[in-house]
């Protein structure tokens, strides 16, 4: 080490020719263009990993609904992603990133309504949109995936009873308007970033936002028929395919490396890649902490460990670390995730007591653990303050909840958002789609 360093400096001091002498070739940081290339690459890799999360949500949800509603859950998931992709292009991207051009200073982008435009084919470095950042296309690709995630969160909570079309219309509004708007307050340089709110990859901006929309929908929609019996007891409606649910969780876990790691937004320097590495390691250990905590706690509370809680626990761990995956040590990241796991095990039954029927546990995982993760930032990051964190959470979650509630309410009045009782009893697959997910298998 020491030796190499000295040589390097020497070499540099004497400018290039000396390089010939340097044992291990040229030294120094990457050039601006290489940095730009590497950061763009980070977004592309991060982006396809976050895209993969859409499949994760689809499998998780398909596995946790009853077999008579699986086809519907699948069509909702692939459709919501597709709609998100289109809406984010049409409205979301520019609404979320005003680039300083505000219609209402720090609150509403002036670019709203203009579609996303990428750099021209074969753009040169002198013509790129931001020479100090990355290609617009890679940034767009990456950010789009975050937008779609919010919609995926909603579909799980409202499963097995919401009508397809109203759900998809809501998805369009959420991904084209609500999320981009609230996200612009932080990531678009809006008032929350001005206030110093700290949410690295989006415990609040993405996850609690999705959770808030889900909560609004769940309240307006009501619980599934038979979920709470006359005596008010909870009637479990077990997921039809826990292998799929587990697969979905692993997919989400994998995608999260891109979700958090890509949010470093730079990979062109030694510090940046080292930080991305920290983020990968912390993200992983937080998920592990959440899973183990849920495993143990569910075993203690219910005698037998509950796989669905372990899955939710791992996800809660991931959501918890998302607000600050960089500054914690491996130890504290594990603990932050573990608290997320505990939260899930305790709040899932709590929601049921409140008769809020969340089919896949998305509210505990994304909303409640998202709150925890957001408030936990100051514990490891001096740059953050509890007050500001609270402000950020309340602003985004509050706005999202109110806007979502209004949209769902309008949809309810105009076209109704819930399927008929017969349809719900028969199952949405046959009643609404005329197509079973597992037609060859006898249902018990």
């Amino acid at each position, binding site marked *: 080490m020491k030796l190499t360093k000295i040589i390097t400096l020497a070499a540099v001091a004497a400018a290039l020719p000396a390089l010939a002498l340097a044992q291990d070739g040229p030294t120094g940081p990457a050039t601006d263009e290489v940095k730009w290339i590497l950061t763009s690459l980070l977004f592309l890799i991060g982006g396809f990993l976050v895209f993969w999360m859409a499949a994760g949500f689809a499998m998780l949800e398909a596995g946790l609904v009853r077999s008579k509603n699986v086809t519907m859950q699948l069509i909702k998931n692939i459709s919501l992603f597709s709609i998100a992709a289109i809406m984010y292009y049409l409205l979301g991207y520019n609404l979320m990133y005003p680039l300083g051009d505000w219609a209402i200073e720090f609150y509403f982008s002036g670019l709203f309504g203009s579609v996303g435009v990428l750099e021209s084919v074969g753009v040169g470095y002198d013509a790129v949109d931001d020479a100090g950042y990355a290609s617009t296309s890679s940034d767009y690709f990456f950010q789009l995936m975050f937008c779609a995630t919010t919609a995926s969160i909603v579909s799980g909570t409202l499963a097995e009873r919401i009508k397809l079309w109203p759900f998809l219309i809501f998805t369009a509004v959420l991904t084209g308007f609500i999320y981009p708007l609230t996200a612009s307050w932080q990531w678009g340089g809006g008032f929350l970033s001005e206030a110093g709110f700290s949410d690295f990859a989006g415990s609040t901006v993405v996850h609690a936002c999705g959770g808030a929309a889900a909560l609004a929908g769940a309240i307006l929609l009501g619980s599934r028929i038979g979920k709470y019996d006359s005596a008010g007891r909870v*009637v*479990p409606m077990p997921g039809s395919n826990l292998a799929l649910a587990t697969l979905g969780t692993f997919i989400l876990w994998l995608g999260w490396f891109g979700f958090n790691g890509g949010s470093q937004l730079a990979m062109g320097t030694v510090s940046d890649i080292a930080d991305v590495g920290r983020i990968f390691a912390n993200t992983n250990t937080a998920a592990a902490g959440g899973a183990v905590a849920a495993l143990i706690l569910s075993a203690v509370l*219910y*005698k037998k460990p*509950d796989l*669905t*809680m372990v899955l939710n626990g791992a996800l809660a761990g991931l959501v918890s670390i998302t607000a600050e995956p960089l500054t914690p040590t491996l130890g504290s990241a594990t603990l932050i995730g573990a608290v997320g796991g505990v939260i899930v095990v305790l709040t*899932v*039954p709590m929601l*049921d007591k409140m008769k809020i029927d969340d089919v896949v546990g998305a509210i505990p995982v994304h909303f409640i653990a998202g709150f925890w993760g957001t408030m936990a930032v100051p514990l490891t990051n001096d740059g953050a303050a509890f007050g500001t964190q609270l402000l950020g959470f309340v602003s985004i979650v509050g706005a999202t909840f109110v806007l979502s509630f209004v949209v769902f309410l309008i949809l309810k009045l105009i076209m109704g958002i819930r399927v008929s009782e017969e349809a719900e009893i028969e199952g949405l697959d046959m009643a609404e789609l005329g197509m079973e997910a597992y037609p060859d298998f006898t249902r018990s």
Partner: protein
Amino acid sequence: MKLIIAAIKPFKLEEVREALTSIGVRGMMVTEIKGFGSQSGHTEIYRGAEYAVNFVPKVKLEIVVKDDMADQVVKTIEDTAKTEKIGDGKIFVLDVAQAVRVRTGEENDDAL
């Protein structure tokens, strides 16, 4: 002829089948069923909510035999299916008016 209907514990199926074959039973119909009886009714917890398990998986055998074989078949099932634990199952015997083997058209005892 008699139709013998028996509900037994699934893991006993193979044993019972072998025993029956050994006494000359040459055919049967086997169905997976949900059994309700004294054994049923313990509770489980799913995502923190308690619920009662009212049905336990059982296997139903339906066997048509000559009248004179009925008792032996009942006895054989009884002996092999027994674990002396609750939920061992039940055996019912009904009269059969007619039997036909589709392949050959043979009737009654010849059809079995």
